């Protein structure tokens, strides 16, 4: 009896292992097709349209060794991190106020919702008139794009936690400080993280557009420069770096969420 069960479990485990290996093989094959296709297409197309894959790898090595990539990435990260930090600060404060005070919600909600639905990227020319061309307008445009998902998620968090958790705490004589520290904060962390995840994606769009249209610095500036010189091999280096930054920051947020709030089964994210 028990040996039969153990046998069945072993077969099941072997099956699962086989499926996992098969899936990994499919993924590797799928990506290989892209890279080989890229290499072949690059071989037959003029360089000004597409460079073969190996040329982009050489460009990556070269730009890493001569420090260009690192400098640009550092510049971009500076703007992105500052923008996200401001967004977090502003977003949490406004979100908490909106969620906690009904009158404030009534007064401010139309503007917050309206701006969230507006493509705030259209404010870039105005922002660059006010803040100049260097770091400040880029940070401002990142904030304009990234702050709204944070506000909305914090607001949703405070409203959902609402009476269900609040009333018992109040009836047991918790002070305002205890409520905010022990009830509100833990309950809204998953919402904060969901907002932050959206904010990262939108913030990077703001960063790139900012670097395109104000002073051309960072990875976006590098991209524009290579594009106007038809350096197609080099062009993929900043694009790939931006993708890695986006993926890295999103993974960091997911990791932080599991680490800070492991009790909350993170909802499958509905897109970023």
């Amino acid at each position, binding site marked *: 009896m028990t040996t039969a069960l153990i046998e069945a479990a072993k077969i099941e485990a072997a099956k699962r292992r086989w499926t996992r290996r098969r*899936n990994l093989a*499919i*993924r590797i094959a*799928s*990506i290989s097709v*892209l890279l080989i296709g890229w290499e072949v297409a690059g071989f037959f197309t003029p360089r*000004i*349209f*597409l460079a073969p894959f190996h040329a982009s790898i050489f460009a990556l090595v070269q730009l890493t060794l001569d420090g260009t990539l690192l400098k640009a990435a550092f510049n971009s990260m500076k703007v992105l991190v500052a923008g996200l930090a401001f967004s977090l600060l502003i977003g949490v404060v406004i979100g908490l106020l909106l969620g906690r005070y009904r*009158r404030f919600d*009534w*007064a*401010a909600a*139309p*503007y917050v*919702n*309206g*701006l969230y*639905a*507006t*493509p705030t*990227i*259209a*404010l870039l*020319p*105005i922002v660059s*008139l*006010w803040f100049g061309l260097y770091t400040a307008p880029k940070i401002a445009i990142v904030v304009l*794009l990234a702050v709204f998902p944070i506000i909305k998620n914090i607001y949703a968090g405070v409203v959902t936690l609402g009476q269900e958790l609040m009333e018992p705490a109040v009836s047991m004589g918790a002070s305002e400080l205890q409520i905010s520290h022990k009830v509100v904060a833990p309950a809204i962390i998953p919402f904060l993280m969901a907002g932050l995840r959206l904010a990262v*994606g939108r913030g*990077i*769009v703001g*960063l*790139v*557009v900012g670097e*395109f*249209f104000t002073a051309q610095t960072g990875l*976006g500036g590098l*991209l*524009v420069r*290579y*594009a106007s010189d*038809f350096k*197609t091999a080099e*062009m*993929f280096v*900043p*694009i790939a770096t*931006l*993708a*890695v930054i*986006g*993926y890295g920051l*999103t993974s960091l947020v997911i990791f932080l969420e599991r680490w800070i709030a492991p009790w909350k089964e993170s909802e*499958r994210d*509905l*897109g*970023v």
Partner: protein
Amino acid sequence: MTDNIDKALAAERARFRRLGWERRLIIVVTLIVFLLAWELVGRLTNPMFFAPPSAVFDAFVHAVADPEARLLHALLQTLSILVPGFLLASFLGVALGVLMGRSNIAYHILDPYVTIFYNIPRVALIPILLLWIGIGDTLKIVIVVLAAIFPVSVNTTVGIRDVSAQFVEPARSMQATERQLLWQVILPAAFPFIAAGIKLALGRALTTVIVAEYFVSVSGLGGLLQQASTTYQMALMFVPVIILAGMGIAVDAAVTYAERSLLRRYRS
């Protein structure tokens, strides 16, 4: 007894009505204060940097009454990119999502690409697509499709995998065909996920079309914005911004409404 209940109900209703009025009052007062403050700040700053709402209003009326109808033209130009791009992205996104949600092999073949594209900021692809496709409307539509397709496909995949687990076995046991299964069980059940994806996609499409018009060739509302900003016509600059805000809000409301009414239909 019933009297008491009626009284309590009436009191509650009165309270709600009072709160409703208070809400309206607060909204109106805030709007007035906001506009007055903007007007004041606008008049006190150099007109090269800011414009008061009265000037924006003038510019708006001028732009609408313009005999050459440049504003209308720009709006139609933007819509001619946005509408086909967005419809194409929604259709392809749902198709891709269904494929990846229903077939494990397709999922593992396509998932690496979706992950890669999802993490590349789509605006960063504008320079390279410019080389491949050239300046023109095709490029702008391609960019909009690239921006909007992945939120739809990822949400559809998640939704279909989520509902498949619950509903597919019962439907199969009732002899549903593969087509019935898809159209009558899986897609309706996954609809909330798909709608969430479409909503995200709309925002991205709108942002991307502006960037494309600004960057690729000066046309549409993004082009209008660019012209106004390079000539320092601050009041005129707010006109496309206001129209874009209106578009964003209207479209968002429309999707929310469609979502609700469809959900109600499937529930009943």
